[in-house]
């Protein structure tokens, strides 16, 4: 594989950049693989990469019904953070943050990790108390957290509404300085390129249409490009999880919902952190191109449509204008939607299943992007060793029977309310 560096850039400049190697191949599916990963999004690509790198399993295929990076890994708002209070989440996402910090070097691909900091605004004394508690929990778990006062925030985001008459005055906030953003497409492409270089077959336009299960064991998958034998299958299909689980007679604590995001026209550098509004659901960061990248609530009803509806965009941006009134003059460039696999406690499921050789990775709700490296790492371990890693041992299916749910937000099993 060609190494990307300033020298290779200069060298290829002499030939008008016409002789770069392809970043990954376009192979025909083989008859049999050791492991098949269904879903060529960030999590699937990362899983294949760590299977090859950490476990030496390279006879692996990724089956993607569309094109890699065309689903949620290309539709999110690129936010990275590990500002969780519960231990299971804190340890898992902090492990991921550490992977993000060196990911560009590891993949030899610039994922544009930007540790610009993420700020959750607080709008009441009670919310400040809750943030202080969460910040302390984070620090006890070795995660960086700073409690900010109103005057600190006046310096950091002076254009926010600090007037005396606003409906939700800014009391302060909780900041994770190492949180930030990364270039989402680059994450998918970087993992794809490295996985491909180690022998993983990335097979696009290949939809899984069925599974061959015999005596409780997986024997192969049926696809739109023929049947493929395998002894292990990992499902990383986010919003389409239930559609595949139905083929395996698995009923899951998952509902599909559409989440929208939008970007404004590009403007000069203004917002230097990721900021979330604490009195509604609105979050925003400024991309390197200058666009304001904004998101908020689910549309609010079950949906498999990768497009959203205007009332929720209006609702989210109303919240946005409450905190950043000067955004009212921004023109909107585009909006889009992605299908979230909303789990019933808001936390993911990374586990073995009742079928031997079938492994499940789902339930990411709106938080899947930041988990890409850590999810891939522990899922690869779960598949390769046929047992869960200690970091995903709490993200099991059994918790919906045992009662040991991980409800960080505490909203109950109604995802559209959260």
């Amino acid at each position, binding site marked *: 594989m060609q190494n990307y560096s300033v020298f290779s850039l200069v060298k290829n400049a002499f030939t008008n950049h016409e002789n770069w190697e392809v970043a990954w191949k376009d192979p025909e599916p083989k008859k049999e693989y050791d492991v098949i990963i269904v879903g060529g999004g960030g999590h699937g690509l990362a899983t294949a990469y760590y299977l090859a790198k950490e476990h030496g399993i390279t006879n692996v295929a990724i089956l993607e019904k569309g094109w890699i990076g065309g689903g949620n890994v290309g539709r999110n708002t690129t936010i990275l953070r590990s500002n969780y209070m519960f231990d299971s989440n804190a340890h898992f996402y902090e492990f991921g943050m550490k992977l993000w910090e060196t990911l560009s070097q590891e993949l030899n691909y610039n994922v544009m990790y930007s540790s610009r900091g993420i700020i959750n605004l607080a709008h009441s004394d009670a919310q400040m108390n809750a943030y202080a508690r969460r910040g302390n929990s984070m620090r006890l778990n070795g995660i960086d957290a700073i409690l900010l006062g109103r005057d600190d925030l006046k310096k950091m985001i002076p254009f926010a509404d600090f007037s005396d008459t606003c409906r939700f005055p800014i009391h302060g906030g909780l900041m994770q300085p190492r949180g930030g953003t990364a270039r989402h497409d680059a994450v998918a492409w970087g993992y794809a390129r490295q996985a491909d270089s180690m022998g993983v077959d990335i097979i696009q336009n290949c939809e899984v249409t069925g599974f061959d299960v015999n005596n409780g064991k997986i024997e192969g998958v049926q696809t739109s490009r023929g049947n493929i034998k395998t002894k292990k299958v990992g499902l990383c299909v986010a919003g389409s999880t*239930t559609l595949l689980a139905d083929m395996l007679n698995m*009923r899951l604590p998952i509902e599909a919902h559409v989440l929208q995001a939008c970007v404004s026209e590009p403007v000069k550098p203004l917002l230097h952190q990721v900021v979330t509004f604490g009195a509604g659901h609105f979050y925003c960061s400024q991309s390197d191109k200058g666009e304001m990248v904004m998101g908020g609530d689910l549309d*609010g009803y079950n949906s498999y449509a990768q497009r959203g509806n205007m*009332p929720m965009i209006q609702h989210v941006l109303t919240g946005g204008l409450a905190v950043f009134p000067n955004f009212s003059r921004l023109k909107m460039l585009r909006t889009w939607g992605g299908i979230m696999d909303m789990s019933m406690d808001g936390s993911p499921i990374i586990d073995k299943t009742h079928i031997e050789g079938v492994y499940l990775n789902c339930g990411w709700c709106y938080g899947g992007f930041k988990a890409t490296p850590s999810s891939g790492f522990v899922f690869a371990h779960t598949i390769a060793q046929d047992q869960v890693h200690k970091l995903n041992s709490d993200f099991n299916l059994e918790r919906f*029977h045992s009662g040991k749910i991980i409800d960080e937000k505490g909203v109950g099993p109604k995802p*559209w309310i959260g």
Partner: protein
Amino acid sequence: MLEIKCPFCGKRSQNEFSYGGDATIQRPQLGEEISTEDWDNFVYFRDNPRGKHSELWHHVSGCRQWFKVLRDTATHEIFDTCKMNEDLNDQ
């Protein structure tokens, strides 16, 4: 914008309604022996189809009645709505 026909008020815009989730879930009958698995299924497990979905909506900014809706989760087409004590027409 969805247009939803409230069985009491007629067609209104989506802004007047709030969502109540899967309409097919049945609470386990009280007074009978209920296994923990029945409770788990009631609380956490869903059919989550891609296609026709029976669901509850609440006309929260209107007559404040709950009612049933049969809607396609991929196209958002609404096939039928009815009162809570009626059955949806799935034709």
